[in-house]
Structure formats: C-alpha cells, structure tokens
C-alpha cells in the first residue's frame, strides 16, 4: 500500500509554506508602514514584529516532515530610537521622542527573502501538479 497521500502531501506542505511566507510578508509590510508611528492604540511607540516558523507535526511520531507553521509573532525587544524633537507632542521632558525600533533595511531584505521563498514554493507546486497530471495519463 502506498503512503496514503504521498503526492497529495506535496500540495499541503508547499501550501502551508506559502501561507507562512505570506504572513511573514504581512508582518514586514506592517513594520515598514509603521516605521514612523510614534504612538499605537496603547499610546506606546510601535515595536517591530517578526514571525517565527516551525515544523508542523504530521502526527506520525518522530517523522519531522511536515508543513510550515507560524509558531508566533514576536516583538523585537531592542531599544526604541530616541530622536531629539522638542516640538513633537510626544516628546519627553528632555525633548526626546521614542521612535519605533524598525530597521528599514532589515525589513526590506526580509521582504525579498520572503518573496523568493514564496516563489520557490509556487514552483514546487507547479512541478508537482504537472507530474500529477502526467501520472493520470499513464498508459494512454
């Protein structure tokens, strides 16, 4: 008996990777968009966020072949950027404003990496699909 869903599994693995990468891209977009957000809904400056990936357990014991799961979105604990701007309403007593700790260069490279990984998974998906279609025409 073949593995129950041997090749259908490629679709779920690559699909989960695409979903995870697109979530990473979403978080990057949020970081870039809020690079100058001095105050969020809680009144505090925005903190950069990163997604953490992990292997989704396939439920079959020690075999660690499975899809990609987003384990969580963590906040960057690095210190906020202090900018001297006494005119800003959010400035402290010394005239400094706490700006988000978003590193724009880092976010841009993160975005490129996510988009490349996404593309790789799309290609995997396309190849798997082509092979499946050809398998369906065996002996014709």
């Amino acid at each position: 008996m073949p593995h129950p869903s041997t090749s259908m599994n490629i679709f779920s693995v690559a699909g989960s990777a695409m979903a995870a990468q697109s979530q990473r891209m979403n978080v990057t977009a949020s970081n870039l968009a809020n690079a100058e957000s001095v105050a969020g809904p809680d009144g505090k400056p925005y903190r950069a966020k990163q997604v953490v990936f992990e292997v989704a357990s396939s439920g079959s014991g020690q075999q660690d072949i499975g899809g990609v799961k987003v384990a969580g979105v963590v906040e960057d604990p690095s210190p906020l950027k202090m900018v001297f701007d006494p005119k800003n309403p959010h400035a402290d007593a010394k005239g400094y404003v706490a700006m988000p700790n978003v590193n724009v260069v880092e976010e841009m490279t993160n975005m490129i990496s996510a988009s490349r990984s996404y593309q790789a998974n799309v290609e995997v998906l396309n190849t798997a699909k082509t092979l499946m279609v050809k398998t369906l025409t065996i002996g014709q």
Partner: protein
Amino acid sequence: MIDKLDAALRFNREALNLRAQRQEVLAANIAHADTPNYKARDFDFASRLTQAVEQGRGGQSVQMAATSSRHIQGQASSMPDRDLLYRVPSQSSIDGNTVEMDAERINFADNALRYEANLTVVSAKIKSLLSAAQ
C-alpha cells in the same frame, strides 16, 4: 496471468512510488528554507529501491489492533521513517537550518525529470503489453 502482468510492472511501480516519496521529502526541504533549526532530509534512492524490489515495501508494517482471534490482520505498511537521512551542509547557517536552496532545487528538478522518465517507460511498457494482447 495477472501476476505476470503485475510482475512486469512491479519494478517501475516501486521506482515511481519512491520517486514520489523523495519528491515529497524535497518539497518539505524547500518549504522549510526559513525555519530555524530545520534539518534537511533525503534518502538513498538506489538502496531503497533495491530493498523495495527484493524485500517488498515497508520493513515495519503497521499492525491493526485485533480484539478477536477472528479479526483479519491488515497488511498496511508505512513509509519507513527511519531511513530518512540528514543532509550534510556545505555551508552552515547560524540558525541551525541546513537547507541549501540551490542544492534542493537541483535535486527537486532532477527527481521530477526522473519521475517523468519513469512515467514514459511505464506507458511504453503498457503499450507494448497491450499490443501483445491484441
């Protein structure tokens, strides 16, 4: 007669099955290119094929729980997970990930091509069997 037909296609069937399994393992490697601490996996195709052809699939078969002596024991076999090997990275990564995208992509493309070649061979074989039967 049916068993002879089965025997004629058996080698190709096992090879196709293993190619599909390897495709899945490689797809998982590519999917986990950015997962920290993920170790790239693969298996030795040649030895697995020899094993499958000589000893049949699945060294360890899954046993069904039989609560009565009259229950028929199933013969399902699963993919032997233990045979999955770890790839040795040529450049290590700081987050413990050993996926090398270029190598994985090459392996994936190579495996896809070989799968397709196998399909062609199977189709040709079926055609020749059909023409012999007519």
